[in-house]
């Protein structure tokens, strides 16, 4: 039973080890093989996850679970990792980074994310978190010889261990409050009115929010995000924005879906405040950014704010809309980073927003996709971003937070400004500097798929939304 149900994670971990071993042991290492092996692992794992759909199972009282929620997120992580590998392939070659470790670390981090999404046990969650964080820290400084990446890596590393200490402290208090760190069990205790120490529980909740807030870059725990996104190698930045953040949300949703009934009053207020300041700060500071990676960093902060909006109340509808939004966000964000990766020649990257000037008339298709991604992030129909926002807002109204929705809507107008600026540069400004474009097949295909998805889900969101609306938790 065990091996059968947790194969997805195991496959990923073993693929990581296989890649490492292959790189070290094989006589004549072909770099493509590393990619193929990793992709194969990810895809097999994805398929395996898909098979498990609708077969909820829990192992060791929820230390590991496999329910629809975990499967959706696992597939998310697996696919986004696959796209990360696809879009980073020649980047790695050009920077002499194309080694087994890179693939292995990405796969390990993926496994960590999957752990985060598929456990009720907080300590396993902590392990997953660290399994995500440590490979990431290494990946961030993977590109040797750059001040940026070292600084970014150090900041990321110190701050994440700092905040994970708080997270761990939160687990301890949960243990103190309920005598268990199994969230489902704690929730069961609520319903049976067993004695739970409320002060400890609240402290615990606060510290857990801090730890996860760090991962999802909610203000004020977002503070590392811009620097790290800026300093990390671009594929890693994409990975951070797509995978790590979503994993944080997966954990947050699972924890607070269960904890919520007990302490919903205070939590709602906390999430409202976090949501508003997160999206406002993210959007406003993004306006001043001149570096595309920094801009996308702040934009990703703002998007966390939007998702938090719906998490003020943990209803099934809230969760399905949050998942849909995250999916839409990841699609557009991966696409955007993919295009940032395309503006490159060998190891020189062009990440100032001015480098986008006149792109549309040089590479119309590329610019067209960038425009789609930007508009999707801005939430303009008919892109998926609009549907995501629309669904999110409609659920928030349903939850009774119309004021929050208005804040979110006004924020989306602010956001439109800086997303449109990229579009404006691409289409309405003359090219200043000759910016080279390196487009390779795997990147092109990825962009194409992501671009189509960003439109498709904007027009036909129905199937995927109803998928997310099924019973998610076991």
């Amino acid at each position, binding site marked *: 039973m065990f091996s059968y149900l947790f194969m997805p994670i195991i496959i990923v971990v073993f693929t990581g080890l296989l890649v490492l071993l292959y790189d070290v042991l094989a006589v004549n290492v072909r770099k493509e093989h590393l990619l193929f092996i990793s992709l194969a692992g990810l895809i097999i794992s994805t398929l395996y996850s898909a098979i498990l759909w609708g077969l909820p199972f829990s192992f060791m009282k929820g230390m590991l679970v496999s329910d629809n929620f975990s499967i959706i997120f696992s597939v998310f992580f697996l696919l986004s990792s696959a796209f990360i590998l696809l879009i980073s392939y020649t980047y790695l070659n050009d920077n002499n980074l194309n080694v087994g470790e890179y693939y292995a670390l990405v796969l390990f981090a993926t496994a960590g994310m999957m752990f985060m999404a598929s456990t009720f046990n907080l300590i396993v969650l902590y392990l997953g978190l660290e399994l995500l964080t440590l490979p990431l820290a290494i990946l961030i*400084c993977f590109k040797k010889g750059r001040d940026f990446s*070292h600084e*970014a890596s150090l900041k990321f590393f110190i701050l994440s261990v*700092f905040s994970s*200490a708080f997270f761990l402290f939160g687990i301890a208090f949960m243990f*103190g409050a309920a005598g268990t760190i199994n969230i489902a069990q704690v929730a069961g205790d609520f319903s049976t009115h067993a004695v739970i120490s409320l002060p400890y529980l609240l402290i615990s909740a606060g510290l857990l929010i801090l730890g996860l807030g760090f991962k999802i870059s909610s203000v004020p725990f977002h503070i590392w995000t811009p620097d790290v996104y800026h300093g990390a190698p671009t594929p890693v930045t994409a990975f951070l924005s797509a995978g790590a953040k979503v994993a944080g949300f997966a954990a947050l949703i699972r924890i607070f879906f269960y904890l919520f009934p007990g302490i919903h009053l205070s939590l709602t207020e906390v999430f409202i405040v976090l949501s508003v300041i997160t999206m406002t700060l993210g959007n406003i500071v993004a306006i001043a950014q001149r570096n595309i990676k920094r801009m996308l960093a702040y934009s990703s902060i703002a998007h966390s704010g939007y998702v938090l909006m719906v998490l003020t109340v943990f209803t099934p509808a809230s969760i399905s809309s949050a998942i849909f939004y995250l999916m839409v966000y990841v699609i557009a964000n991966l696409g955007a980073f993919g295009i940032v990766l395309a503006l490159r020649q060998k190891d020189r990257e062009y990440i100032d927003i001015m480098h986008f000037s006149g792109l549309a008339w040089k590479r119309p298709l590329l610019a067209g996709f960038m425009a789609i991604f930007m508009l999707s992030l801005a939430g303009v129909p008919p892109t998926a971003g609009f549907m995501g926002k629309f669904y999110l807002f409609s659920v928030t109204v349903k939850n009774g937070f119309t004021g929050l929705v208005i804040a979110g809507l006004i924020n989306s107008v602010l956001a439109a400004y800086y997303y449109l600026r990229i579009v404006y540069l691409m289409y309405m400004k003359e090219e200043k500097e000759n910016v080279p474009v390196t487009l390779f097949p795997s990147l092109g295909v990825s962009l194409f798929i992501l671009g189509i998805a960003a439109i498709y889900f904007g027009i036909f969101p129905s199937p995927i939304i109803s998928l997310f609306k099924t019973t998610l938790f076991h």
Partner: protein
Amino acid sequence: MIPIKLYLVLSGVLFVIGTSGVLVRKNVLVMLMSVEIMLNAVNLAFVSFARYMMLPKGQVYVFFSITVAAAEVIVGLAIIISIFHKKESMDVDDMNVLKG
């Protein structure tokens, strides 16, 4: 029996010391050590809760924590060494190229 609160206060004090270390010290290594103090403070809390509630699984969690701490130190040191190679400096305030 010594009340649980005192253990928690001790744990809290340790945690604050660790936190302060991260905040005030400029040396990266010392910062890393301060984080270790924080983790140990948590371990103390775990153990005291476990003892107080007579739930041995709390002590098991500490093993997980220690393992993770060890992994953290390894990765952290690796990063610090590679930075030292480059910069010949341990001062964390030297690193503020990325800002804004």
